[in-house]
């Protein structure tokens, strides 16, 4: 049984995304703790990439700030090991295929296991290419998270049947970033997912308000929020953890 399932045992799951090293790793540790203490059920830790093609301007900015600050994959593994002394909720990495590939997939997953990372999201690794890493992920008990998009017609069952950890349902076309409205017919996608797997399904992309979180989690198992949290980091820098705690609290309460 995947450790990630624990995130879905406490009602609807609130999933927070935080880019590691924005503005520095000390702040990341505090931000993750603040999120966990205020009801986040799972945290996605972003390993920054120079060219994050699935991200909108907000998370692109966080990636560049973090890299400018000198963050590396090794420093992030060290940080997670520290973080694990206090944080017990499931943690997953979110990064790009080249970060894992260039590090060496086996070495990367060995370190994930050591740091008790429960899963990994790679937005540029679709179903057709997952064999690049899934064998090694399985070997070290790291769930390779599958994404399903509004344009996945005819592919949902195929992806859901092999999904592990949780399914990341992308709410809208385009890249990450807050949206005033989400118009995709997500209920019918969730229905097909449910028919094909028991793996929980959380919705992300464009969610920023408690109302949106409530609505999205009502039709799925949870809501994923990234850009709205990164905006708090962008605005408050080292002081952001306090505000992130407050924000996560308000979101979780609404769900």
């Amino acid at each position, binding site marked *: 049984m995947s450790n990630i399932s624990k995130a879905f045992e406490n009602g609807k799951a609130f999933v927070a995304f935080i880019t590691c090293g924005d503005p520095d790793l000390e702040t990341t540790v505090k931000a993750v703790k603040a999120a966990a203490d205020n009801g986040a059920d799972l945290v996605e830790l972003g390993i920054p990439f120079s060219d994050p093609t699935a991200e909108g301007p907000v998370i692109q900015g966080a990636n*560049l700030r973090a890299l400018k600050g000198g963050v590396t994959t090794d420093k992030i593994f060290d940080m997670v090991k520290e973080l694990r002394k206090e944080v017990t909720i499931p943690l997953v990495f979110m990064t790009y295929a080249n*970060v894992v590939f*260039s590090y060496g997939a086996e070495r990367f997953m060995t370190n994930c296991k050591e740091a008790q990372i429960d899963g990994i999201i790679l937005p540029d690794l*679709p179903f057709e*290419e997952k064999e690049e890493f899934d064998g090694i992920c399985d070997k070290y008990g790291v769930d390779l998270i599958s*994404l399903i998009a509004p*344009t996945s017609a005819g592919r949902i069952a195929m992806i859901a049947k092999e999904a592990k950890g949780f399914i990341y349902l992308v709410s809208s*076309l385009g890249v990450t970033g807050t949206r005033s409205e989400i118009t995709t017919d997500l209920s019918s996608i969730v229905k097909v997912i449910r028919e094909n797997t028991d793996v929980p399904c959380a919705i992300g992309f464009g969610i920023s308000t408690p109302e949106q979180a409530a609505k999205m989690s009502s039709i799925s198992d949870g809501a994923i929020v990234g850009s709205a949290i990164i905006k708090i980091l962008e605005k408050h820098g080292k002081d952001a953890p306090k505000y992130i705690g407050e924000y996560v609290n308000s979101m979780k309460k609404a769900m």
Partner: protein
Amino acid sequence: MTNTKGRFGVHGGQYIPETLMNAVIELEKAYDHYKNDPEFNMELADLLNEYAGRPSRLYYAEKMTKDLGGAKIYLKREDLNHTGAHKINNVLGQALLAKKMGKTRLIAETGAGQHGVATATAAALMGMECVVFMGEEDTKRQALNVYKMRLLGAEVVPVTSGTATLKDAVSEAMREWTSRIDDTHYCLGSVMGPHPFPTIVRDFQAVISKEIKEQILEKEGRLPDAVLACVGGGSNAIGTFYHFIDDKDVKLIGCEAAGRGIDTFETAATVNTGKIGIFHGMKSYFCQDEYGQIAPVYSISAGLDYPGVGPEHAYLHDIGRAEYVPVTDDEAVDAFEYLSRTEGIIPAIESSHAIAYAMKLAKTMDKDKIIVVTVSGRGDKDCAAIARYRGEDINE
């Protein structure tokens, strides 16, 4: 060579967001259908011949040959195509395909602006909407091409993210495609990106080597000893190589932009300095650091200023079929001036990289040897920048 997932050896593949998967599957199906459709091929041949001016000339550069005193040098004159470069070959094919697929809007990335101008041209001709993404840095380096694209009815979006050059323009075009797929075709400009793009673009550019083969057999009664082309993403190079890949006696030489030298960080010579990675939808060679962060590359040529190379080139390198050599800014600029003075042909600074290596190579070969160099584009767009490089400030 290509398997069902578009592999060239270990390279290639489809490393893209799930959101785009159905779009590339739809594109692959449409291409597989139309590439064997006689009507499609007749329409495309008509566009290439009547509109773009094909076949392009294979010109014997007699003065250059005599001056260098070695191998006989032929120039494949892609610079004489409509819009001034080889880019139009691919664009007309993709635009026609997109139209058959019911798409009404083309988006494209551009570096030097040649692919952007070609896409804007095809969009104007076929009555399609067009948006071109161009690094802000490049919109300044290539202001004339920005004007041309707008004149042709395209919208030009300056990209400010990252290094504000070609790779960022590709990233932004991919982001745009994930947000609008239904009516939009991403007209990728090189033999890169996710499958099926490297195959589609190669097939549309293969007309270059098809013609070279016919023309050289007619002129010389035999195949050349070497064919040369510059390599950024590698579309004119793969076009130049393709029909010679099985002719093992023909050397295939790709000329990469070494910038200020392959022992410096200011280089874009991917095969010579990069390592294998996954980026922009493909597995191939990329300039990157030890953690896989893509390197900010440099070349005097905005068209070769890209940190990756097409997956088929990576494969041809792996199996030793093609050779990839570095050419510096200085050597390219010298060649730019040399060809202008010697043959009265002003080559694009991109193509000048191939000319530069040909100048070195020809001298080492006997007079009965033959080399063909593809002049991928004309150099009008580069005159102001080269003048500046030589310390002369001129107004465009």
